[in-house]
Structures are given as C-alpha cells and as structure tokens.
C-alpha cells in the first residue's frame, strides 16, 4: 500500500505540498509544479514561505503554529489571498496536520479555483451589461410615455392622458361624493398672434400659456392641451366654489396682459369657463360641453368690454 501512495499523490489534480513543522518542503507533487511553475527538485528542502513569499506573513506562521499544537484544519480562500502560488492561478489553500509514528507533518492542499473566478467575472459582466441595458430601456420607456401622453409643443398632458385621469377623477368624485371641476381655457385672438408675429412666436406663446396654467393650479390638477389654442384643466377634490375661485384668481394674477416674446410686446388674453360634477353634468363629455359653453359666454363678455 505504502509503495503506491506516492504514485497516487502524483496523479491528483490538486497541488499537494507536505512540509515539516519547521516549514521545510518534503513533498511537492506534479500538479503543484504546474500551478507554481516551480519544479520539485528546485524546492525540496527549502522553506515553503521562501518558495511562496505570500506566505511569509504572521497570519500564516500563527496558523501553522496553532495547527501543530491543536490539530484543527486551516483554510485560506483565493479571494482573500491573491497570487498565493502564481499570478495566473487563483487557489484555495487547506492545511491539515498529519501525524505518522509521532512525527508531525503538515499537508497543504492548493485547490485551483481559477475557472470559478473567470465564470463569476463573466457573469458579473453580463449582469452589468443587462443592468445598463435595463436602465436604457427604462429611459426609452419614459420617452415613449412622454410621447404617448404629453403634448410635444407645450409639455402638458395630451388628450390621451386627460381621458385617463378624467375617468379616474370622476369615479373618485362619484365614490366620495365630492365635486370635480373642469375648466375650459381658450387663448383669445391666437390666430391674430400667429399672423402678426409668426408661427414660431405663436408656438412660444402657447408654451407660456401652458406654463402659466401649470404654475397656477395644484399638484394633482391636470392641465391638458385640448386643441390648437384650447386647454382643459381637471380640478379634482373641489369641495366648494371657493376652492375653484382660489385657482382662477391665481391664473388671473399670473396672467400678464402684455407679455414680451421674441422682442415683441404681445397682448395676451384668456377666456375661461368652468363646469362642475355633479351640478353641470354626469359625464366628462357633458362637463366639457358645459365648460365650453361658459367659456364662450366669458369670451363674449371680454369682447364686449374691449369694444
């Protein structure tokens, strides 16, 4: 049996080193030659911490001493101990005490885990690439959502988003017994602005009206560009007419009669009509029709005043 053991150790695909209690190398198997690039003849009789200099540290010497005294195995991981045997291989090191006829030796097993490190590194790269792709997709989703639900020129909600919120807010108002306000806003004489100052300036004026409405309304109110120069504003959770009046007053205060755009002094005027669920209608279409009607009354009043 003893005669075949050296042959068996030579066949094992694991770096095997046997050292004495003085750290002198007494056995160095062929796989260890492959891992370290050092031939057995060159290292036998030398101290292991001189042949493998990363072991020339207090943690190794202390571990060996404890192992010689106590006999319990020691483990050093490839992750915490880089370049244990060479720069090309990552190895875990297990050390056990072997006692034969009162003579104590230490068996060092160098287990090659280089492939594990490579695979994990590849997986980390894939995860990183996927994570990057995922964030790109999320950004694109946001852009698509913006295109689908927001008006390209003014940045406020388009009709699709308005419809979505209108149904939601109407259902909440019905369930809670609260009011829902719907404001119809029209930019007076917008065609004249376009004809006088050009479409480019007209577009900028439209954007400023959208900003004015957004700044004057509450966080949960929905400002929507309904048509060319028409806006709708959904006002959920209105409890009294005063709640609406506070918003209308803010629009009035923010609305500058004259605005300067592209160096032109432009007269800006808005006509507004408001309808309320449940008094003015039971559906969004009825509320829009009613608010449109009141908006025309307001437009007529403004025209009369300016005559």
């Amino acid at each position, binding site marked *: 049996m003893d005669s075949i053991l050296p042959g068996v150790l030579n066949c094992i695909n694991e770096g095997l080193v046997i050292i004495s209690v003085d750290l002198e190398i007494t056995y160095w198997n062929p796989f260890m030659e492959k891992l370290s690039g050092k031939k057995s003849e060159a290292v036998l009789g030398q101290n292991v911490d001189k042949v493998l200099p990363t072991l020339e*540290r207090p943690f190794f010497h202390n571990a060996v001493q404890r192992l010689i005294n106590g006999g*319990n195995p020691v483990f050093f991981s490839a992750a*915490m101990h880089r370049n244990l045997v060479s720069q090309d291989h990552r190895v875990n090191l297990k050390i056990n005490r072997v006692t034969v006829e009162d003579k104590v030796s230490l068996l060092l097993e160098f287990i090659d885990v280089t492939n594990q490190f490579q695979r994990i590194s590849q997986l980390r790269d894939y995860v990183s690439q996927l994570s990057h792709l995922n964030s790109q997709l999320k950004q694109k989703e946001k852009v698509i959502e913006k295109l689908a639900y927001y008006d390209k020129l003014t940045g406020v909600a388009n009709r699709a988003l308005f419809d979505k919120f209108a149904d939601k807010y109407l259902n909440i108002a019905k369930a809670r017994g609260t009011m829902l306000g719907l404001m119809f806003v029209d930019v007076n004489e917008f065609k004249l602005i376009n004809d006088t100052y050009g479409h480019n300036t007209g577009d900028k004026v439209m954007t400023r009206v959208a900003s004015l409405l957004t700044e004057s309304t509450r966080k949960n109110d929905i400002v929507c560009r309904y048509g060319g120069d028409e806006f709708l504003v959904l006002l959920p959770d209105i409890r009294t007419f005063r709640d609406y009046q506070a918003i209308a007053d803010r629009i009035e205060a923010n609305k500058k009669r004259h605005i300067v755009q592209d160096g032109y002094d432009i007269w800006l005027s808005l006509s507004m009509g408001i309808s309320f669920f449940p008094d003015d209608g039971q559906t969004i279409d009825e509320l829009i029709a009613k608010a449109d009607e009141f908006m025309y009354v307001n437009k007529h009043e403004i025209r009369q005043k300016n005559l």
Partner: protein
Amino acid sequence: MLVANKISREDILTELFNIGVGQAASTLSDIIDKQIGLTIPEVKILDAAKAKVELNKYLLQVAEGAVMVSSISFDSQLEGKVSLLFPADKMHHFIDLCLHETHVETENTLEFNDIDFDTIKEIGNIVINSIIGELSNTVNIPVEYTLPEVDVLNNASADHFVDSEEYRLVLMMFLAFDIEETEIAGAIVINMTLKSLDDILNTIDRLYNGS
C-alpha cells in the same frame, strides 16, 4: 453546580472569548490589510428554551430572518456544535470590504457565489478557531473539528441552531464586527452536551476560584 457562581463563570467566559476574538481580529487585519475590531460584549449560559427566545430576537431584529451561517461540529472530549451567524443582507458589503472590491449591482441580493462562500468560510474558520481554541487551551481539553460549512438560510429560526434534544445547554454571545466604520452584528451559538459544558465550567472554577 451549574447555577452557583453563574455570573462569574459568564464573566470569565466573556473575558476568555474576547482574548480569542482579539487574536482573530489581529489575524484578519493582517490578511486583509485593514483595521478590524471584534468584540463580544457578553456571554450567556442558557438552557435551550431561553436560548431560542434570545436567538429569535436577534433573527427578527438584526437579521430579519435571513442569515449566512458558518458552523462546525466538534467531538473528542468535548462534544457540540458551534454556529457563527451574520445577517445575510449585510454580507455582500462586508465581503466587498474584506476583498477591497465594489459590486453595486449585487449589493442587495441574497444570492452568493462560491467566492463569497469561501471568503466567509475563511473568516468563520478564523473566528471559530479563536473561540474554541482559547476555550480548549484554557481548560486544557482537546477539541477536534473540521473546516466550517457555510450556508445561507432564509426565514431562519432558532430551531436551526439550538437542538434542545441533544444538547440542552447553550453558550450564546453576540459579536460586534467592525470594519472601516461598518459594524456587522453577528451571533455565536455553541451547543454543548451537558457533560461537556460541566467539564468546562468545573475546570474554570478550579482555575479561577480554586474550588
């Protein structure tokens, strides 16, 4: 015999284990080239039922039920099992600190690879060696064991670590692991046969109290 001098025995064990983990901290600092603090504020000797209550508190409050555990069984003259528990959700950050690495994408997952397991196996080996080694040296009773097994347990409960049938008495301690101002609250549970613990405590009494 076990109840008398209980406080002083616990104090003695606390001091012994702190010497052990102090050496473990020094070894780990040498390996990873960073300042590491390891302290055990208090050791408790509990019966299995009380140990389960204490441990369940830790699992619920600190580890939220998911732990990474290194455990070894020992036999020869002393028989038992020791488990070193860490909150699993903190372990990626902890391992990264030990390896001087940063992996933001895996920081919050409970998935661990072989490299992570081997890192914890080494740390577990060093910490457990230091505790059991110190105990074994002090009472001069040899302890034999293998390398730790490392596992991640989701929804872990104290029943995983405290075996009331076989061991009945438990040494329990919490471990404050401090690395670069990040503190990881670990727990160590040592299940021992009544005879083993009795042997240890009697030896300690003889050594420190002369009885």
